[in-house]
């Protein structure tokens, strides 16, 4: 019994240590990336290229999913609201849910699964084929060359994508409200934009900036620390997506509580 307990505590200790090591690694990578942003060469072309990969190339899937989320949200809300003859509030519920919560989180999860996994696989392959070492021997800092463009583009493009996702989701809800539930178009629009306040949009966008940083840093950290060939790249990619998802939901919970209690 004593041995079993000892083994349990040792395993728990190892997990806690590995978590501290992981968080420390992410924070350290983030700080190094921020310090290296102004270092020359600035690498504008690389930032632009990454912004296209993360932003423009993700737009179709973000648009599709957020449209469906808007439709689903409107239909699910209608299920309850019709019982209370309050269909008119569907517009407000869809708008507020999307801008405050679903838009930022769903967009972040899509981008983490699509671009975050891609970044880990790309950097991981570079690490195992010695391309990262080659960068160092060619006088370039891998954090400046590889991490900074991805960090900046993810941090700036995720809020932009979220704005698109919000708009398209609201449009999905609008179609259900107007064409299925026969709510007048002008009334639906009034209920949508009349309810939304600056704080709704602000809180949602602040979260996405943090989500963007999390996606980029976790993806780069996992990629640059790949060991063990193709199998290592596969494992790192899986860990990158899993860890990013957990950190996004945890950060979302933290910010939601923060805004609920402190931003009136």
């Amino acid at each position, binding site marked *: 019994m004593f041995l079993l307990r000892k083994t349990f505590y040792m395993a728990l200790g190892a997990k806690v240590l590995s978590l501290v090591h992981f968080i420390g690694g992410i924070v350290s990578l983030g700080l190094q990336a921020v310090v290296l942003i102004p270092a020359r060469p600035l690498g504008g072309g690389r930032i632009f290229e990454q912004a296209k990969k993360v932003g423009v190339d993700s737009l179709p899937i973000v648009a599709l999913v957020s449209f469906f989320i808007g439709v689903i949200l409107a239909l699910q809300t209608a299920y309850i609201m019709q019982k209370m003859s309050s269909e008119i509030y569907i517009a407000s519920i869809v708008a507020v849910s999307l801008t405050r919560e679903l838009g930022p989180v769903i967009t972040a999860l899509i981008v983490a699964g699509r671009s975050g996994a891609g970044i880990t696989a790309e950097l991981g392959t570079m690490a195992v084929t010695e391309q990262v070492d*080659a960068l160092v*021997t060619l006088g*370039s800092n891998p954090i400046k060359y590889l991490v900074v463009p991805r960090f900046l583009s993810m941090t700036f493009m995720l809020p932009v994508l979220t704005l698109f996702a919000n708009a398209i989701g609201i449009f999905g809800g609008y179609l259900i409200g107007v064409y299925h539930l026969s709510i007048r178009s002008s009334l639906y629009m009034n209920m949508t934009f009349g309810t939304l306040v600056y704080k709704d949009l602000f809180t949602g966008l602040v979260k996405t900036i943090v989500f963007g940083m999390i996606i980029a840093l976790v993806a780069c950290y996992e990629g640059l620390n790949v060991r063990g060939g193709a199998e290592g790249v596969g494992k790192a990619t899986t860990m990158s997506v899993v860890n990013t998802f957990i950190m996004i939901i945890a950060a979302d919970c933290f910010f939601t509580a923060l805004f609920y209690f402190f931003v009136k």
Partner: protein
Amino acid sequence: MAMIELIDVSKNLGGKQVLDHMSLTVEEGETKVIIGRSGVGKSVTLKHIVRLLEPDEGSVRVEGRDVLALHGRELNELHMEIGLVFQGGALFDSLTVGENVGFILREHMNMAQSEIDKRVKESLALVGLYDVELYMPADLSGGMKKRVALARAICTRPKIILYDEPTTGVDPITADAINQLIDELHDKLKVTSIVVTHDMRSAYKVADRIAMLYEGKIIAEGTPDEIRYSHNPYVHQFITGAAHGPITDGQNSVSTNAG
């Protein structure tokens, strides 16, 4: 003055003592070949010279400068002076051949594009490649990748070139062509070179001196002929490629000269 000095370098990687108080000196203009079995620490030795790895103990000196004391711009300058040719080429997949070769010029030197293009062409010509600037690395054969990697390494006209298994994974004819290239570059660019290999044909062809690494130490060193006719049983087993002998039997009587 020695160009490269590794003094009493020890390195433990993942619990394995890869280098154990290993010392090695390479004189200016010399081509030194390090031979040894796979996993014996040959590539680890090269990585210490460009500070991709730092020793647990000992010191590494290049042209008298302590590599571990270099930071920032000084370390970048060291990297400009050393060209490292990686085993698999380590070409950047997302860049064309021309962009790979001219990488360091574009990123770190204030050169006009036309000047960079000219230097890239010259470097590719030195390794016998013409009109391949727009190819992607994925479109190249193994031998061509090695040549492009070599062209990238010599683009800054370094004083030192380090080759990590330059002939591994290519056919014998390409291997011989690469050996010839190493010789030609040595003559044309007057560089100091270290070639890490377990290909004895290559070692005899390019070396001024050969050093054998075994169990973290240099156990024998000499000219190609001294190594070829060495009585050291470890060296003998390695150069003859015998399946049985002291290396595989794990015997311990290691002498420290080529004998």
